[in-house]
C-alpha cells in the first residue's frame, strides 16, 4: 500500500487530500471537503495534466505567447517545450490560431494567445 498526499488546487481552500493506492489502483481518498477534491486527487495520482503556457518565436525576431488548448501530460512538458522552441511562425497571427497542431499525439494543439501583426 502506498499513500500520496495531494494539495487540491481547485479552490483557495487548498485541502490536503490523502490517496491510498495499491498496484496503481485507488483504494481510498481522504481529506477532501467536497467532491471536486476527490476528482482532482484521482486525476492527479493517475494522470497529472497541466496547460502549458510559453512563448513561440516569430520569423521577425519577436516572441508571441502561446498555450496548449487543453491540459497535456505533465511528465512530457520538457518534450513539448523542445518542440515549441524549434518552430518559428510567420506573422500575422490571430489570437486562437493553431500554431502547432496535435503536439502530443492526443489531439491537443499549441495556439496563439495574442495577436501579432505582419
Amino acid at each position, binding site marked *: 500500500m502506498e499513500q500520496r498526499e495531494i*494539495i487540491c488546487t481547485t479552490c483557495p481552500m487548498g485541502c490536503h487530500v490523502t490517496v491510498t493506492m495499491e498496484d496503481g489502483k485507488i483504494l481510498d481518498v481522504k481529506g477532501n471537503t467536497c467532491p471536486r477534491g476527490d476528482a482532482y486527487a484521482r486525476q492527479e495520482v493517475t494522470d497529472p495534466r497541466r*496547460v502549458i503556457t510559453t512563448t513561440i518565436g516569430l520569423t521577425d525576431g519577436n516572441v508571441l505567447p502561446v498555450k496548449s488548448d487543453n491540459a497535456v501530460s505533465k511528465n512530457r512538458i520538457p518534450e513539448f517545450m523542445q518542440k515549441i522552441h524549434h518552430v518559428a511562425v510567420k506573422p500575422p497571427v490571430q489570437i486562437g490560431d493553431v500554431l502547432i497542431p496535435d503536439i502530443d499525439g492526443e489531439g491537443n494543439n499549441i495556439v496563439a494567445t*495574442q495577436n501579432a501583426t505582419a
Partner: protein
Amino acid sequence: MTKVDLVVIGGGPAGMGAAVAAYDAGVRDILVLERDVRLGGILEQCIHNGFGLHRFNEQLTGPEYAWRFEKELHARNIAYRLNTMVLDITEDKVVTAMNSEEGVFQIQAGAVILAMGCRERPRGALNTPGARPAGIYTAGTAQRYINIMGYMPGKKVVILGSGDIGLIMARRMTWEGAEVKMVLELMPYSGGLTRNIVQCLQDNNIPLLLSHTIVDIHGKDRVTGVTIAEVDENRRPKMETAQEVECDTILLSVGLLPENELTKKANVPLDRLTNGAYVDQRRMTEIPGIFACGNVLHVHDLVDYVNEEADIAGQGAAQYLKDGAEDTAKITVKPGNGVRYTLPQRISAVEKTTVFFRVTDVHKAVKVNVKNDEGTVLLSRRRPRVAPGEMETVVLTEKILAENVGKTISVELEEV
C-alpha cells in the same frame, strides 16, 4: 484646451474596464491614455493562465483576458492613445500628457479615472546588504525580458519572496531551461496562491524555504552567489544558520506598491494603509470628479476583482458627470481588530456597498463582525479560513447604512 468628459489614465484591465463601464452607463466622450505600445497593461507579460475564472468562468492567459476588454473598447469606438505618458493632473482635472506625435498637450477633463496600476518593490527598499553586481531583477522585470523581449536573464536562480509573480517565474524559468535553486520567504507562510505553490514549485521540485532570507549578495560584475539564513520570530536572521548558495541571478518578488505619483500631484489624499487614495463606495477620491480603481488603489489578488472595481468606478464617474457629487451619508469605514485595511474608507450615499478588506494574520474559523461606533454589531459572518493574501468582503445593505448615517463603521475579526 481640448475638453473631454472622461479621461482614463492607464489602459490595463482597470482602465479598459472602467472606460467600458462608463460608456455603458451613458458617457460617450471618453479618452484612455496608455504609456505602453499596446493596451493590456501588465497582463501582456503574464502569459500564464488562471485569469478570468470569476469574471468569465474560464481560465484565460493574461493577453487573452486583456483582449476580451480591448474588443469591448473597439466595439464601442472608445478613443485611446498609446505611447502617451501623463505628466500631471491638477485638482481642477487638467491632464497634461505627451507623446512623440503631438508633443505636450493638455486636456480639461470633466472626470478622471486613475488606473495606473502598481509597481514592484525594488532591491533598494529591502536594505539587503552585499555587492551590487548585475543579475538582480524584480520578478516582473525578468518576466518582461522572457515573455515579451525573448531574453533569458540567467541560468542559476534564487528567488526571494514567495509572492505569486515569484512563483510563476520559478516555473517559467525552469521550463525555459534554467535551474531555479530555491524560493526564500521571510514570513512563516507564503504570500502566494496555493495553486501556484503546487503547480509552480512542487511540480518542478523547487524547495520553498519559509522563514528564510538573503543576508549577503556576492559577485563583482555578475552575481556569483548569495548567503541565506533562517530568521527568528522577529524576522531577524539567525547567523549561525547562514549558508552560501551559488547562483548567477536573483529575482525579487517582495511586494507591490500602488503607483500614485500622479495622484499626489492632484493633491488626492492617500490612505497609508492601502498606499492608495481614500475613496467612497463609488471609488471617488476626496477630490470631486477624480476616481481610482485597480491596483493603483490597493493591490488585488485577482484581475477579476480589479474589473469588479473598475465597473464601480466607471459607473461612479458616469453618475458624477450627470449629477455631480454630494455626500448624503457621511459614513466612515475603518479597520478594527485583526483587519489591516478596508475599502472603501467612506460611504457617501445610502446604497448597497461591498466592503473589501484584508486581515493581518492567517486564522482558521473566525467571525467577521461589522460594528458602529456605539458598539452595536450590525452584521456577523463566519469564515472557515482567512489569510492576508486573500481579500475578503462583507456586504452592507441599504437598511444597515440608512440606520448608521453620520457614524463610523468598523470591520473586525473575532476568534470562535
